[in-house]
């Protein structure tokens, strides 16, 4: 594995996070380069979501460093990170149920320094990628189906014009057709130069969409390699993700 030529976009080193006394992250280290899709695999409870939440500042790290574009961001409040290009799409989507689709998008769109023209552009782009959201733009978020809510969650994040999206299990609970759609979205975002840290349990999708893979177990990274070096039937996959 050759080191990335440029400074990585996000660099996490020896991260320790607790929920009360529960020691969830026991020293996680990983990095994501500009425009890279990096997969983070592992079973339930190993700390994948906690890693994303710690990077996003939603949970304070007890130890370790988090660097974004070379600067330390540990302790920075989430709303500041969102304005500087880090977007977070949580595991249970968490769209604003009582706001309309349009209002959900506006929470990301109404930022300082965005011209009206740019706003219209972003909306057009997102409605082109997700026509169903255009159809339902005045409907309350809570009335959308699971797959539609997932799309809204991703679209909402895209309104922030992020440099990296922390994407937590986007395909969980979705039908195969929607899973394919998520794969397309990840590819499109990558082509646009957006980096993605993709937490998933769907192994084939993650191997296909990512450039590099980290595998976690019990709060640490146990394996790190290029996605091309792994296949679904690899014993490493069986060991850390199978039964």
């Amino acid at each position, binding site marked *: 594995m050759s080191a990335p030529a440029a400074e990585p976009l996000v660099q996490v080193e020896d991260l320790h996070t607790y929920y009360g006394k529960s020691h969830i992250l026991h020293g996680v280290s990983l990095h994501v380069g500009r425009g890279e899709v990096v997969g983070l695999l592992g079973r339930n409870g190993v700390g994948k979501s906690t890693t994303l939440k710690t990077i*996003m500042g*939603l949970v304070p790290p007890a130890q370790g460093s988090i660097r974004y574009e070379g600067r330390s961001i540990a302790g920075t*409040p*989430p*709303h500041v990170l*969102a*304005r500087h290009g880090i*977007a*977070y799409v*949580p595991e249970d989507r*968490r*769209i*604003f*149920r*009582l*706001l309309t689709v349009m*209002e959900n998008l*506006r*929470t*990301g769109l*109404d*930022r300082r320094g965005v011209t009206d023209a740019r706003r219209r552009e972003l909306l057009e782009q997102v409605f082109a990628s997700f026509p169903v959201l255009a159809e339902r733009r005045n409907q309350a978020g809570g009335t959308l189906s699971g797959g539609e809510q997932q799309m809204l969650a991703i679209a*909402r994040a895209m309104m*922030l014009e992020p440099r990296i999206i922390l994407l937590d299990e986007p395909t969980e609970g979705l039908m195969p057709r929607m899973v394919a759609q998520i794969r397309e979205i990840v590819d499109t975002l990558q082509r646009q130069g957006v980096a993605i840290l993709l937490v998933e349990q769907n192994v084939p999708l993650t191997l296909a969409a990512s450039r590099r893979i980290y595998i976690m177990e019990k709060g640490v990274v146990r394996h790190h390699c290029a996605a091309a070096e792994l296949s679904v039937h690899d014993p490493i996959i069986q060991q850390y993700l199978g039964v």
Partner: protein
Amino acid sequence: MDLILGFVQSAPVELIIVQTINGIVTGMILALVASGLTLIFGIMDVVNFAHGELFMLGAYCGVVVFALTGNFWLALLTAAFLVALFGAALQIVTLRPLVGRDPLTTILATFGTSLILQNYALWQFGPVSRKIGEPITSQFTLFYLQYPWYRIAVALLSAAIIGAFYLFLKHSKFGIWIRATTQDRLMAQAMGIPVPWVLTGVFAFGAALAAASGVLFAPLGGVYHTMGLDWVLKAFIVVVVGGMGSLGGSIVAAIFISLLEAYASIWVSPAQAVIVSFVALILTLLFRPTGLFATPK
């Protein structure tokens, strides 16, 4: 005995109409006070025991500005603005450090603040009640009474303020920020909404609403350092009956309770009429404890 005499002597229909108007006037002021309270609770989960004192401070501010300028409307706007600033400062100093802690701590903090403010007002302005002259002194004939136009103006103005605020919440960018923060504070942050400032802003708004009610009420009842107590107690009843966090619920409940009291005071003294508010509170807690219009979260 009073009851029967009252019954016999009153001219029911006319009296009921007069009391209806009175009830609505008081109800609208109460709605204004209660909306600030329910807004603060809905977003921040803070039970603001200092809300009555913000009402009282607004009234005193109005007294001072009115004495200086003679202009009632200027007094109203200035009082609302100054108390909003004060409310923001109060929230930053006493409540922001308590975010995420046991709700009991915020109750203690706001209760302590109310005591401080009451005693400050007593020290600053003395125990004698002050007055603000009504901006509209004309009256109209309502049956056997000369009814002040000002009272009608107060009701209309309160409705206008609440209406404007509702539109603001529904359509403006800050309104969306406030509604998003109420529903999911964490994701609001993840979307770049500066949640700590949204909370401060909401507290300031609530304070402004309380202050405006204080100035509007001042010509009707006089300004004294404990005037907040009566109103905040009723406002809490309104918030509980209407449903904590529901703006519409507070308005309906405020008018409902004020009407009940107004009707009750046809037969009993106003001091005793207050009992109906408490009866309404108890019935709500027994049968529909989340309130009549509780917001789904």
